[in-house]
């Protein structure tokens, strides 16, 4: 079926103004954060954007796509870091390719918060609500509750997209990831059937746990339209600490000591000395030099703040800590320190010497982090390539960032080789190739290698069979998560 017929049929399901096919408009919806620097030409002969308002409309669109075998790309706010929501994908041959044709299903109009229970501590939200938007609403309603999963993109990321990508965030060690907070889901499978799974309660035994199965499925098993999320009481008080050390290991040891004394911190972030320098160069933000560690401690209303500060200072007053700063959530430095962390990605991007930055998303057990950081330094030396590293110390999730020129076939091959070494080392240390960004298109090959390493290659076949049950015509986000 040609794109004109697809457009005509979609306008029978949705009002005309919710089916978009202008070439400029498609230029906005066809990319995600990774594929953004590439410049696809006019895509209006290949794709249309559909903007449904509810599960019934999503169901009708999928039924139409199922009948006519048209690929469908579900999309939230396009902040995927693994090529999961745009039309550009990376084939197994490391070639950048554009999907042949399809319908981009944008969930941005599903924006209602339909139910909130402060006693039961849950909220029911549509897929297009942004995470920060949800938290702002909870604050406006004076609920004293919040939704704690906070990917760095929370200002933009939608609930649907965050569930589909299995997002984590800075508070991962303390509060887990999306899979720990989704109580129930409404989703539409590849046949257009609307499913409602899960409960409004924490305890729930409802046959197979399809709710969690959908978390992290990256739009390949169903389109999430509505989610029931668990809420939690807001921290009463947060104390933020920033400290610098000359060597990573010294700062890491201090972090372990803080964790031992105060329990799991709310956030515990690491930025390498080079990243700290780059942030200074690009934003002018200066706190100190060396490897930076940002630790947030969550206090309840009965905590003695002065005592916490005193104990914290006692740990930080050791010879390996060059400089430290402690700020309460009412102080100016509190936000400034957070801005330092938020500037990590934009600053590495601004100071890049090559066209692209590839952000990896590995995870290793916390005890293996020093070994892994040492390994990255060796790789950096061996290949003479700019690789920056930072990430979430508290859960072992690190984000090595590699500079690359994906348009140059020679460099693309080399960078894929380096990326492969970087992620497989994480697997060797007992970790995994992805912690929170998802597999998308970029990491399918690595996923296969991880299972091979675990002598469990047949698991991929199991996944493929499961996908067939949910999506027999392979129309939902094809070419993502598992190999074809």
């Amino acid at each position, binding site marked *: 079926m040609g794109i004109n017929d697809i457009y005509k049929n979609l306008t029978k399901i949705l009002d005309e103004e919710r089916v*978009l096919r202008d070439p*400029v*408009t498609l230029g906005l919806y066809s990319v995600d954060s990774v594929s953004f620097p590439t410049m696809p030409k006019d895509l209006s002969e290949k794709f249309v954007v559909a903007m449904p308002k509810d599960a019934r409309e999503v169901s009708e669109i999928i039924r139409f796509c199922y009948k006519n075998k048209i690929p469908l790309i579900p999309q939230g706010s396009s902040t995927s870091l693994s090529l999961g929501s745009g039309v550009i994908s990376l084939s197994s041959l490391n070639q950048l390719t554009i999907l042949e044709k399809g319908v981009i299903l944008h969930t941005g109009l599903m924006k209602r918060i339909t139910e909130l229970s402060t006693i039961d501590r849950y909220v029911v939200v549509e897929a297009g609500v942004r995470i920060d938007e949800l938290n702002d609403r909870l604050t406006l309603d004076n609920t004293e509750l919040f939704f704690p999963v906070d990917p760095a993109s929370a200002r*933009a990321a939608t609930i649907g997209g965050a569930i589909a990508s299995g997002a984590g965030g800075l508070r991962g060690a303390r509060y887990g990831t999306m899979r720990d907070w989704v109580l129930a889901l409404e989703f539409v499978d590849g046949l257009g059937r609307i499913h409602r799974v899960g409960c409004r309660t924490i305890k729930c035994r409802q046959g197979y746990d399809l709710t969690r199965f959908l978390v992290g499925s990256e739009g390949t098993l169903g389109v999430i339209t509505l989610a029931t999320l668990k809420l939690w009481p807001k921290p009463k008080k947060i104390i933020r600490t920033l400290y610098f050390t000359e060597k990573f290991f010294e700062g890491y040891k201090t972090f372990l000591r803080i964790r031992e004394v105060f329990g799991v911190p709310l956030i515990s972030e690491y930025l390498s000395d080079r990243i700290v320098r780059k942030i200074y160069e690009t934003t002018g933000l200066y706190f100190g030099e060396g490897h930076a560690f940002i630790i947030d401690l969550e206090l309840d209303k009965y905590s003695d703040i002065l005592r916490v500060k005193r104990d914290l200072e006692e740990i930080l007053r050791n010879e390996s800590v060059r400089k430290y700063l402690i700020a309460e959530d009412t102080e100016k430095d509190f936000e400034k320190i957070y801005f330092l962390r938020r*500037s990590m990605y*934009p600053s590495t991007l601004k100071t890049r010497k090559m066209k692209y930055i590839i952000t990896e998303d590995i995870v290793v057990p916390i005890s293996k982090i020093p070994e892994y950081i040492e390994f990255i330094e060796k790789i950096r030396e061996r290949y003479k390539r700019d690789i920056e590293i930072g990430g979430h110390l508290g859960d072992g999730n690190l984000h090595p960032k590699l500079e690359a020129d994906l348009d140059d076939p020679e460099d693309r091959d080399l960078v894929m080789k380096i990326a492969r070494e970087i992620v497989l080392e994480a697997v060797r240390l007992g970790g995994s190739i992805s912690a929170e960004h998802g597999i998308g298109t970029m990491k399918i090959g690595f996923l296969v290698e991880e299972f091979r390493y675990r002598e469990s290659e047949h698991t991929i076949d199991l996944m493929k069979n499961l996908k067939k049950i949910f999506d027999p015509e392979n129309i939902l986000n094809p070419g993502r998560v598992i190999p074809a």
Partner: protein
Amino acid sequence: MNKSLIDPVEFIRREVSKCVYCGFCEYECPTLDVLYDRGYGPRGRIRVANLYVNSNIISKKTIEYIFTCVLCASCVQACPARIDIPGVVIAMRYLLNNKSTYKRFS
């Protein structure tokens, strides 16, 4: 606009190259709040400008997206790359108002 002071195309190219498509700006935008698609938000407008100056992709939508911005600059504070988004919109308006440019899509 005095060309010796600033070249709008170069200015747009410089500013749009800083965008990483993170979308933080969208939450702040009053026009995206009431209009349907991404083009009516800052991230969209930056991308539209990018498509125009770097790939020469332009349509009637380009005008709609660029001329519906109210230049409130709420997005600037939210942008981690501190892109001069209103500046890009103004420069785009200048280019689109230029007759020779306008002919190409009217």
